[in-house]
């Protein structure tokens, strides 16, 4: 593999998007939990929920700042490193990005100011409204960016203008609601919800194990467990629908996900590998364990219906099979883990003993790594599986880079991002753990604008 401008630009894109994508799903997921917890405060007047909401807002602000700082890189990078792509697709791809700025970023950033700086400036209701708006803004932002990316996966609503050598829009509606948008937005949101829930579960479990903030930690834990269980189960359903959609719209990608080199003969089903090592040389999966006909069943509810294999595509149109397969299976594995662990915790919750299961709480402390891996692996699967196309079936990634940029320049910027992001990551972990060590603080009853909204404030100290 030669490290030319093209490969270096891909490397940089992978590095910067993977680092960026640690934060936005956490922002979205946490924002939902903040809406619930702040809503509980308004509804019940329980001061502990206010303390919880303030605590999460502080952490949220740090996560949000990391998302903003790394997000602006992404918007610049289409132009800096993928100029040919930008020229080819700008007519179609540019408008969702601009819409994201106008509709989502302004909304988010304005109301975030109220969230972080406004506790004593606005009423409790207005603050709650702002939390809802930040959450709404984060969701709008994810919609527009997933629209843009889905258009790369399943382009629709455009024609190719041969004279100008570019794609031009014919229907904005068809572009926005291209065949994969809705499935992918849902799946991204569920991934975000799982991450938010596991993040809260991890920190509350940590408090519970150390006997700190016990009452508040129990409240947070229960809210997060309910959300996490629902999202984990829903992600399974959404993932299933999305995989079927990939099979219909990007068959080579699905074949790579499943390591399906050969299309089964008529009347024979395609196997479903639980794990394995796809081998491009022998065109088979080594060390694998498969459910016979399993893939056919998932796709067509019949064990005997053939599924299109990679042999139906010329080799130059194959995605990297092994990478796609492993990323996809990594996502599935953690997804199954989320369902198992949350259902188990729900069982103990139902029995009334969940907070006595110290081993389970320890598992939850570390389980937050799972959704980070799941979100990253899911995106890797989506993006690697789309290769060798930057716009599926339309423009190859290898033709899309910037002719005006030299390899040396990209080496410089990769070095810069590596250093910068390593440093940012360490500082982020450090500050988050400081804040978590400090924990939520129950404030005195009279806290300006807020006391008005309370009915029967509960001033009792935590246990």
């Amino acid at each position, binding site marked *: 593999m030669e490290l030319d401008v093209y490969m270096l630009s891909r490397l940089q894109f992978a590095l910067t998007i993977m680092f960026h994508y640690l934060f936005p799903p956490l922002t979205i997921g946490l924002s939902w939990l903040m809406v619930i917890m702040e809503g509980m405060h308004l509804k019940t007047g329980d001061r502990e929920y206010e303390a919880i909401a303030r605590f999460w807002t502080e952490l949220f602000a740090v996560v949000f700042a*990391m998302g903003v700082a790394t997000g*602006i*890189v992404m918007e610049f990078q289409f132009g800096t490193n993928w100029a040919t792509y930008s020229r080819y697709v700008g007519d179609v791809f540019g408008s969702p990005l601009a819409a994201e700025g106008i509709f989502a970023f302004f909304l988010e950033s304005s109301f*975030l100011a109220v969230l972080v700086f406004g506790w004593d400036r606005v009423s409790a209701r207005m603050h709650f409204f702002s939390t809802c708006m930040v959450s709404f803004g984060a969701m709008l932002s994810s919609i527009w960016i997933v629209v843009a990316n889905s258009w790369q996966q399943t382009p629709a609503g455009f024609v190719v203008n041969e004279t100008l050598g*570019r794609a*031009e*829009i014919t229907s904005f509606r068809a572009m926005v609601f291209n065949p994969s948008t809705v499935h992918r937005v849902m799946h991204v949101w569920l991934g975000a919800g799982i991450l938010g829930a596991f993040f809260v579960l991890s920190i509350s479990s940590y408090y519970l194990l150390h006997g700190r903030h016990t009452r508040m930690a129990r409240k947070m834990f229960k809210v997060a467990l309910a959300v996490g269980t629902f999202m984990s189960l829903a992600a399974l359903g959404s993932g299933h629908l999305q995989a079927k959609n990939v099979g219909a719209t990007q068959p080579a990608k699905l074949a790579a996900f499943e390591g399906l080199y050969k299309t089964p003969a008529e009347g024979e089903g395609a196997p479903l590998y639980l794990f394995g090592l796809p081998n491009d040389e022998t065109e088979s999966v080594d060390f694998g364990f498969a459910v016979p006909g399993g893939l056919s069943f998932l796709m067509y509810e019949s064990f005997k219906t053939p599924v299109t294999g990679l042999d139906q595509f010329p080799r130059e149109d194959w995605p990297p099979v092994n990478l796609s397969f492993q990323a996809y299976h990594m996502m599935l594995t953690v997804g199954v883990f989320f369902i198992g662990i949350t259902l188990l915790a729900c069982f103990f919750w139902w029995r009334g003993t969940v907070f006595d299961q110290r081993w389970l709480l320890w598992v939850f402390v570390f389980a937050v790594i799972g959704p980070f891996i799941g979100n990253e692996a899911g995106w890797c699967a989506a993006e690697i599986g789309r290769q060798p196309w930057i716009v599926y079936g339309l423009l190859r990634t290898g033709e899309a880079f910037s002719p005006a940029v030299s390899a040396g320049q990209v080496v410089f910027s990769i070095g810069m991002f590596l250093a910068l992001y390593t440093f940012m990551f360490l500082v982020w972990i450090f500050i988050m753990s400081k804040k978590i060590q400090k924990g939520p603080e129950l404030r005195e009853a009279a806290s300006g604008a807020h006391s008005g909204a309370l009915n029967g404030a509960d001033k009792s100290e935590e246990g």
Partner: protein
Amino acid sequence: MDLEVIWFFLLGILLAGYALLDGFDLGVGILHPFVRDDRDRRVLLNSIGPFWDGNEVWLVTFGGAMFAAFPEVYATVFSGLYTALMLLLCALIFRAISLELRSKLDQPGWRSFWDWAFALGSGVATLLFGVAVGNAMTGLPVKEVNGHIEYVGTFFNLLGPYQLLVGVFTLAMFALHGNLYLCLKTDGELHQRVRGWTAKTFTFFLVTYLAVTVYTLAKIGHALDNFKKHPTAWIIAVICALAVMNIPRSLAKNRPGAAFLSSSAAIVLLNALLGLTLWPNLVISSIDPMFNLHIYNAASSPKTLKIMLTIALLGMPLVLAYTSAIYWIFRGKVQVDKMTY
């Protein structure tokens, strides 16, 4: 009116909005090292706390709108100015996280590190914006390569004397703008000190303003083309000069609000002058005018421009509503006992 023309104006509005709004918080960053006391530094950070993030969205939206409306310009300029943009990103990232992290730990070494990151990030970003404007004025070494207009210079081609002068001018302009903003946001002893700086920041601004004006008139030949065709355009330059002169006048009358409005007007009018110089081009080729990227050969299809116009018409009233709401909620002086940063 042609859609291409409308989008030239809309991009101008986004750029002017960015310069006007982020200008003051970048300016606060540039002035940050000049206050020493930790509490005072926190006042400075909190004066821009609720606003800086929203202000930066104007830049992001400007970038997105340029991508959508003039993809050829977005691709040529962003890939051509690669190294400069990477430095800009580095500066903006440092700035964003230093604001968020600085006061999270009560430790002198930590705080002074982030203080410098914030100041340098703000200064470098401002300087680079100015250098970019300077290059827009002089034109860039771009020419046709394989059917597209590509940048054929190096990073150091961007750093000519005129471009650097415009960079320093922008630094002075934002420092003054931020200074005037701080006059509105501080009180007590800090206010007196900040107020005392205005003589210096205004002088710095005036000197560089005159230098850029003279240099532009003397050396940038094509800068006057549109003014020769439409002499009424000189009115904008005159009003801009009047706005600048109104700054010391308002300060002398002890009306910092009017001074801030004057510097805001000057920034918007300077953007208008930039637009007038470029019109109808977006990128001027310093090699041959036949390689210019203008609003017609760089634009998206009319359909996209129309869709984008709908998006802008729907979105802009919302943006103005949130922005004014935030500036209203957080009006007045910074309250020291309720600081977040």
